[in-house]
């Protein structure tokens, strides 16, 4: 995963290649949805004038007996008459863990599909994409407790298990982000990519401490915040009794009157979350469920490429 096609990500795939979100979400099978997005994304890549590399050169080192002679750089040998071995970034050692929120708050949507379905599609797409690249992908789904845990593996059939786990309906009475982060920190000792997909509609007090522990463990952390357009604008026409999807608490709300306050509080929350991510060096992406997934993926990869360059530059 460490090698998203850099040149390919520099330019977004043309809009014509994108699949309409509504059409995509109307596909019942999560696996098919993921495949459709990934294939569309691939085709977008192939139409790109730039051809990417699947491996990144990092450095040379002197050959020692026992090294694989395939990795000898013969050009350098021709120039210097010394054996050098090309070193590449070890892709297969990268492990990605998808932390997917399946709480009831994700079971909300005004477009015909819910945030949970969108998040599942996103996670499945990422998993498929990574799997096709030969990366090991794991899954930890959660609501107010941990639900399914699949360790990061790269073997035949693993992707299928991930998709089955992602296809489960939402549950739980609340969103508890602490437990999964705490748990994954405990389990995964090796550096990995942690992708947290949630609506993050929860208090952020405790989250910071645990995210710190996650990033401090060397894990690269990416936060996908999946939101419905109605949550972004509170665009409801008539007053009604609002019922909390998780706790069942009800509240009479006149959207016209409550919109300003809601947006102010929501914006403050978003800014606090973004600030937290900046502080911790975690990538933070807000995804509206109305947004095409491919575009979201492209943004993600672009951002990731930029971030990777920065990291490498800093490393040098």
């Amino acid at each position, binding site marked *: 995963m460490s090698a998203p096609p850099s040149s390919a990500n520099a330019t977004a795939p043309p809009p014509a290649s994108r699949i309409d979100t509504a059409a995509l979400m109307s596909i019942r099978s999560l696996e098919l949805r993921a495949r459709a997005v990934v294939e569309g994304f691939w085709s977008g890549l192939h139409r790109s004038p730039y051809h990417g590399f699947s491996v990144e050169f990092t450095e040379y080192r002197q050959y020692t007996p026992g090294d694989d002679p395939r990795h000898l750089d013969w050009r350098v040998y021709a120039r210097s008459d010394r054996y050098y071995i090309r070193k590449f970034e070890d892709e297969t050692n990268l492990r990605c863990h998808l932390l997917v929120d399946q709480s009831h708050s994700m079971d*909300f949507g005004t477009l015909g599909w819910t945030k949970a379905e969108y998040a599942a599609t996103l996670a499945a797409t990422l998993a498929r994409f990574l799997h096709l690249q030969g990366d090991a992908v794991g899954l930890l789904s959660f609501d107010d407790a941990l639900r399914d845990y699949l360790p990061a593996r790269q073997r035949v059939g693993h992707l299928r298990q991930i998709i089955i786990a992602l296809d489960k309906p939402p549950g739980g009475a609340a969103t508890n982000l602490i437990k999964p982060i705490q748990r994954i920190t405990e389990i995964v000792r090796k550096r990995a990519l942690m992708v947290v997909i949630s*609506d993050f*509609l929860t208090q952020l007090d405790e989250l910071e401490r645990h995210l710190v522990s996650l990033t401090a463990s060397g894990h690269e952390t990416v936060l996908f915040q999946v939101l419905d357009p109605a*949550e972004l604008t509170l665009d409801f026409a008539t007053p009604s009794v609002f*019922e*909390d*999807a998780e706790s069942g608490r009800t509240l*009479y709300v*006149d959207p016209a009157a409550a919109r300003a306050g809601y947006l102010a509080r929501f914006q403050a*929350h978003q800014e606090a979350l973004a600030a937290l991510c900046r502080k911790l060096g975690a990538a933070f992406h807000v995804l509206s469920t109305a947004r095409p997934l491919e575009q979201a993926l492209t943004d993600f990869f672009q951002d990731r490429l930029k971030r990777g360059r920065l990291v490498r530059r800093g490393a040098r």
Partner: protein
Amino acid sequence: MNFLAPLFLLGALAVAAPVIFHLIRRTTRDRTRFSSLLFLQPDPPRLTQRSRIENWLLLLLRAAALALLALAFARPFIRTETPLNPGSDKNRRIVILVDTSASMQRDGLFPAAREKAEELLRGAGPGDQAALWTFDATTRRLMDFTEWTALPAESRAATAAGRLAEVTPGWGNTQLATALTTAAERLAEIPPGETSPGGGEIILISDLQEGSRVEGLQGWEWPQEVFVTSIALTAKQTGNAGLQLAPDSVTLAAGEEPQARVRVWNAPDSTGEQFQIGWAAAGEAFTGPAHDVVVPPGQSKVVALPWSADLQSAPEHRPAQPPLLNSTIQTNSNNTATSSPASQPQSQPAGADFKSALQPSRRILLKGDPEPFDNTVFTAPPVAVEVAAHYFGAELLTDSKKPLFFLNRALPESRQVSVKLNLVPPEAALPVILPGQPAIFFANGAIPPAQATFLHQQLQSGRTALLILSAAAAPALAVITGTGAVPLEDIKPTTYGMLSEIDFKHPLFAPFADPRFSDFTKIRFWHYTKFAATALPGSRVLARFDSGDPALVEVPVGQGRLMVLASGWEPGSSQWALSSKFVPLLSSLLEWSGAVVTPPAQFFAGQPVPLNLLGLTGVGPVSVRHPEWTTTTVTPEAGAFMAAAQPGLYTATGGTLTKTFGVNLDPAESRTLPLPTDELDRLGVPVRRADGREPGQPNSGPAPAVETESRQKLWRWIMIAALAVLLIETLLAGLSARRAPAPGGSAV
């Protein structure tokens, strides 16, 4: 403006409905599921633009439509004063009818009626003619027009009021139809000195209870220029429970304990439903165990009270202080005379005292009802009637080939009626029969002349005999009927004879008149005696043989009658005795002849008591002892005892016979619910106003509300107005909808 159905005006409250609905919409019950209420805060309802009424005109139009609809349904009318006799300046003629029926004994009713009547009498002008009548089962004239006009003008009202003051409600039922028609006929008479009917007004002062008898008004042609003003009195207390003897009140079935069955009836507007019932002693105490009865309002329940042996045999107690009837207006028919014991004090105790002083052991009392006037019934102890059937003929009871054998088995025998067969062989002494003693005679064929003469005498005094004819019975027939010799001839049909031309109108065959029972063809006659019915003067052929010869003939003899049967009923002569018709026919004969009399369980106060129903015919003058121990003598010509004016046990004595019978209040009087207001209107009575009016203004008054309303029909115009408003509203709403097609933009 007045309203016929003002309650419909409540419908105008619906005007508030559009506004309320609009406001209710503000506090919607719609639920929206939202992901998290983290960023939402409670929002107190506020008046928003949506809550404000935007189109006042539409709102007003809709409110006006609803109000108009409510107004139309309330049936408005404008009351107009209409003169009673337009253009007439004649002096008034008024009959004031005051109800004195038993239901007027209820608390405060009769004083109110008296007050109204006196007020009307005082309001009569010097030129007016007034009559003051009272009515219950009978109509009594306290003062008529002639007497009114004969009196000095200044003393008329006082005299009439004085007479009314002596009257108290009696025990009769409310014969309202009779009273109204009698008064109307009186008003329709042509006054002396005039050429045309005077007309006038009947002012009816009554409680107009449901039990009033108004059926007689149906189809009665009401005279012109006679109007009725009804002043309906309302009792202070609603509800009433009544006690009445059930139709089969006294049972004497074999093997069963004698029981008196009474029905407890509770009016629909009663508040109580728990009562006590039992045999009553003096005062208001029960002699035996009281039965608790629960009768919900509007329902009735039949209670059986065992008639114990001591009650049956208890002697009647002469009241220590003989009470009198409350009402002093006694009706004595021309042929009855009332005598009171010389020592009887002429005091008039109250109704309750009167009732408690009556035969304590034979009255049933109901407790728990606030209206006491109908809480007592009297019932005579059950007495078995013994009838003697004398059979003249030389036969043995065991000879199954003779008529006597079958007669003996067919005679009815029960605890209530017992028919004893008395055999009178030719050589036996003649039976001794006391006057009034129930008896019937049967004779088979030839009987000795002495017996025939005896039968003739008995028939003369009103009894009945049946003669089975044979050719040898010609002399006996001649003696019994008192006519000349009638030629008789024994006939033996070639096959058999059958009955035909049966007179089903005759009381003897009337029970068989129904086509289900009228088939006599299965009774075949092997031989009979032919005679000419015309030879017996006054005879009536009740049935003939198919040959045309008479089979059963009724021959009047003196006050009695002889039934001549042309054939015997034994199997040797016919199949009569073996048929299913024999026993019913015999019972019919016994009842029709008067030998078996089953008196009704009770008679009603104020109504005649026929002597034949008591079995007291042919016994000379009958002396009837009243409950208060006075005596009335009824001559046989009168045929009925007319002075049963009050409830109680009466004892009639005629000859050697003594019959006790109970007289009770008519159960209809217990139905004290008011008569429907339009009932008199429905029966064609020109009622000026259903709910009474101010006394003293009889010449003019408001026309009946229903009539006025139906004449004015204001509701139609209001409905048209409502439709017009709705039309305008529809147009306006359509226009505004076109201008502002946004949803939810409705004004109200």
